[in-house]
């Protein structure tokens, strides 16, 4: 009996993927676990392994072609079955068989959200407990519950990038509640009824949790309790950087912020110390080829951390433009889910509030975060002289599973060096 192989959801929230290369040929016998193809998404190319053994009867998608997740990509027959036995197009019965198998499979493990896992193959279709809906998600048609449509409209959420965890991949209310919530809850958002106060004389008011508040609480608790944090602190003289910024802004069309320069400096530090651009992935350490940096943006009701990608390859102008756009859209609640995912590193800057120094909690699955304090005039010894310089204290929180003390020290030294010699940032 031939089975249909469907395009896997190799990354969370990916709705479409391409076959970069077929690693098997028509007629070839494959065993369970043997790589079938390299599947390419916007973010990654991953190997996709066979979940059933047998003979490859058909390859339905050409190399380079993109199809929706869940679309048939190949047909695998029972061992010994020849391609003559395969129908020209997948028969309905085969589809049903495949679906039933999926439905009978154990519930897929719940990947931690916002942790894109390239572990391929787990069907995203939950076994449906509801009466008799054996149908799988129709290609190109996402199931979205009515209340989700309503809330998404109210909250300005783009549902294209939301992963549905309801029956047949339906996007359900919990999938939205999980997202950082970019705007204050509107009146229409159901509030949990306040339980009658045990202390009637009234020591407190109860404020209903928003979805974002819950997400922050859950993720940061998880981070602080499961990620072994350690901290390195350094001071950087900012006079040169501030002067450079003034100069850049004199004639530039794009307004460059101090933060943009710090982001660029961080990227430069990673170029100098590439081993620090790594994250923990349970069984392996993942060293990243691109420097993707999250910037923390405070918004009404909480904060979000959109990712600036490929900072190392971008000019300061590009970084400034991209960063302004992310900040702007974050405040308007217009970020896409994938813009909130990934990256190995964050920068959190409380300098504008006059904070001298602080330490930050790592934003999983990243491995470090840089907490930036205010640049303020301080007495500094240069040579034998005490001089006044504008000095900024930065604190690097690092995940010790990935980054050891010496590595963190090297990185922060590289960072301070770049800040103090800012022209190199522009290289």
């Amino acid at each position, binding site marked *: 009996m031939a089975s249909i192989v469907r395009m896997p959801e190799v990354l969370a929230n990916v709705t479409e993927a391409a076959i970069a290369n077929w690693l098997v040929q028509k007629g070839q016998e494959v065993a369970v676990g043997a790589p079938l193809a390299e599947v390419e998404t916007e973010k990654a190319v991953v190997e996709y392994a066979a979940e059933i053994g047998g003979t490859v009867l058909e390859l339905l998608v050409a190399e380079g072609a993109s199809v929706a997740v869940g679309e048939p990509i190949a047909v695998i027959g029972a061992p010994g079955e020849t391609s003559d036995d395969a129908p020209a197009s997948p028969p309905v019965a085969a589809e049903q068989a495949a679906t039933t198998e999926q439905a009978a499979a154990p519930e897929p493990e*719940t990947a931690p959200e916002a942790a894109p896992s390239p572990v391929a193959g787990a069907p995203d279709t*939950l*076994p*449906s*407990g*509801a009466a008799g809906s054996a149908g799988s998600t129709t290609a190109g048609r996402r199931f979205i*519950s*009515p*209340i*989700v*449509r*309503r809330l998404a409209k109210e909250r300005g959420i783009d549902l294209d990038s939301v992963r*549905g*965890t*309801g*029956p047949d991949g*339906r*996007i*359900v*209310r*919990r*999938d939205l509640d999980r997202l950082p919530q970019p705007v204050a809850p509107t009146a229409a958002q*159901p509030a*949990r*009824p306040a339980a009658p106060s045990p202390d009637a004389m009234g020591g407190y008011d109860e404020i209903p949790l928003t979805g974002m508040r819950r997400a922050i609480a859950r993720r940061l608790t998880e981070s602080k309790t499961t990620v072994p944090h350690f901290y390195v602190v350094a001071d950087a003289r900012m006079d040169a950087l501030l002067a450079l910024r003034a100069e850049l802004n004199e004639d530039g069309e794009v307004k460059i912020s101090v933060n943009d320069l710090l982001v660029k400096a961080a990227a430069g530090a990673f170029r100098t110390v590439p081993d620090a651009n790594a994250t923990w992935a349970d069984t392996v350490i993942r060293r990243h080829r691109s420097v993707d940096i999250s910037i923390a943006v405070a918004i009404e009701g909480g904060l979000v951390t959109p990712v600036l990608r490929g900072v190392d390859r971008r000019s300061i102008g590009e970084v400034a433009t991209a960063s302004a756009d992310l900040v702007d859209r974050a405040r308007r609640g217009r970020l896409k889910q994938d813009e909130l995912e990934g990256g190995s590193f964050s920068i959190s800057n409380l300098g504008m509030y006059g904070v001298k120094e602080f330490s930050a909690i790592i934003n999983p699955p990243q491995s470090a975060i840089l907490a930036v304090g205010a640049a303020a005039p301080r007495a500094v010894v240069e040579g034998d002289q005490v001089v006044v310089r504008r000095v900024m204290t930065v604190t690097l929180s690092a995940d010790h599973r990935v980054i050891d003390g010496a590595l963190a020290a090297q990185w922060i030294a590289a960072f301070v060096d770049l800040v103090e010699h800012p022209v190199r940032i522009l290289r």
Partner: protein
Amino acid sequence: MPNRSRLEASVDWIRLDSTPDDWKRADPALLIGMLSELHLIRAFEETVLELAGEGLVHGPAHSSIGQEGGAVGSIIGLRSADGVNGSHRGHHQFLAKALTHVTSGRFAIDGIVTGEVDTVLQRTLAEILGLAQGYCRGRGGSMHLQWFEAGALGTNAIVGGGVPMGAGNAWAQRHAGTTDLTMSYFGDGAVNIGSVLETMNLAAAWDLPFGFFIENNLYAVSTEVHEVTGEPRLSGRGPGFGIPAWQVDGMDPLAVHLATEEATARMRAGEGPAVIEAEVYRFFHQNGPYPGSAFGYRSKDEESSWRERDPIARMTRELLALGTITEAQADAAREQAVQAMKEVAGRLVERDPESDGKRRIKPDLWPDPAFVDVGIRGDASELADVPTLEPLEYTGETRSGRFVDSVAGVMHHRMEQDDRIIVLGEDVHRLNGGTNGATKNLAKDFPGRVLGTPISENAFVGLGGGMALDGRYRPVVEFMYPDFLWVAADQVFNQIGKARHMFGGDNPVPLVLRTKVAMGSGYGSQHLMDPAGVFATSVGWRVVAPSTAADYIGLMNTALDLQDPVLVIEHIDLYPLTEETPVDLDYRLPLGKAAVRRVGSDVTMISYLSMVRHSLEAVERTGVDAEVIDLRWLDRASLDWDTIGESIRKTNAVLIVEQGAQGTSYGGWLSDEIQRRFFDWLDQPVQRVTGSEASPSISKVLERAAIARTEEVVAGLERVVAGMGER
């Protein structure tokens, strides 16, 4: 050789014919009254056929031409307070009753059309044409003619369907201490239907002043009477039930009158019902302006031999012979009737400006289409001043007792206060409170008001409906098991449920029907339904399903106040439970208010009756943060949408929980309403817990498998949780 002796019926079966002597002795005013009514009805019916021929009567027009003698002869002697009802062929009975009401049956032969007579003719014709000025505002049409003031209780399109209700009217007349009576008219076809035969038995058992008037016109549509019965002398039905019977020539109005006088004398004296069979003939086919012979089921010869017996011709001949009237007066009477009908029709129809030579209904006479649903039930204004109590908030004195004792207790309390309440059903008067103790002490303390009925649900619930329509009594009918509704379905749904609306929307039907759901008791496939779904999807009924004894008391009190038919559903699982109830049994629950039994935020569970407890148990077991709504009021008009809506907007998920079989389930219509009202608030399909498809079997294991209890609700909650996606 056995000994054989002949048994005699205990009552008389009489053939009655008039003699020349009878005609001489008859009051001339009575005879002139008969002739006048005959002419008016004949001219009226000719007008109806004429309009039907022009396509102006929507639906069938069952002509009574040829049969007027039976109706006029029997009705002209009745009082206004006497009731009549009839079936699809009822114009002549209705007109005879209405005309007799406005004239007392006395007419001046030279001026038979008084203003009141003219009004009767116009409003009746308007009703048949479906116009707003009709007696039932145009709703009833030809087959549902009702004018309570005149004692016209309403004609019926279910053959024989009006008979049980007529008996209820007779019960009220007798119980109120009057000597009034009710006469129900039906045909040779209808005589074979259960409603008629069950009611014959019931009326005889209870000595009701009720007449069964059979218009034997030899045909039911095209079927001949001797084809469908072994005893085509239909009055023969009476003696078998202990009812005396008369057979009479219906083409002779005086003979009919004389037979009726004999029969009604008995009825008014409290000696019980009577059967009168009048041999009549409809000159036309079942409906429309063609003779039956045109359809081949009878001959022209037969028709002309009956036409020679035309009651108007007979009446005229006799009056001329007696010298009571002159030939000129006889002709003039006919002319007056024809002229009156011309004028009446002229007020209702006009030349059609769009179609040459045709007429049309005057457009401004139609009812307003917005009237379509008005008066399906009352507006509940009768509850405006009654004090209500919410048991959830009650903090006063309580007493502890079994649920079933509250059932009997509240009824006892109300019967003490309200003489109008009458309880009827099978065995309600014995066994110390019926089969479950739900009517305990009632028979003992209220003699004559707790009626053990024969096993004929259709007749006794219909009789209750007739009592309710009469208005002097508040019947509380019990069905021992809900499934018996099917044998009573005509009276429950076609009659009681529709009576108010169908006859114009004004006349209330205050009736309470009690029944108990018995799933789990092993009574099997034909006893264990939940009737909520069938009633909630049928028009006219209100439905309550209390889950606590305190609610039961308050809901029963409100049900007894309401001017509408109310089904009160009980459950045998609840009967033995010991519960606290307010000491004072007078309180009412507000109409249409549900109870939130548990506040929660994950899913709105909607349930009623015993399943409320199972729902709460399932919530405990699963730990799902569900909001549990106990509906209390289940029907379309009384459902608490405010509470349901508020909850759904909070939880975005719904689980409707009920116990019984899928097919007749309650949740079907409710989930349909919910998805349309709250589509944008739902995060998953409306989920449901029901029994299986099959009706529960007797085998304990199969019965358990067929119904829902806590375990099935747990599974339902798990489906809801799966529908919520990943945490």
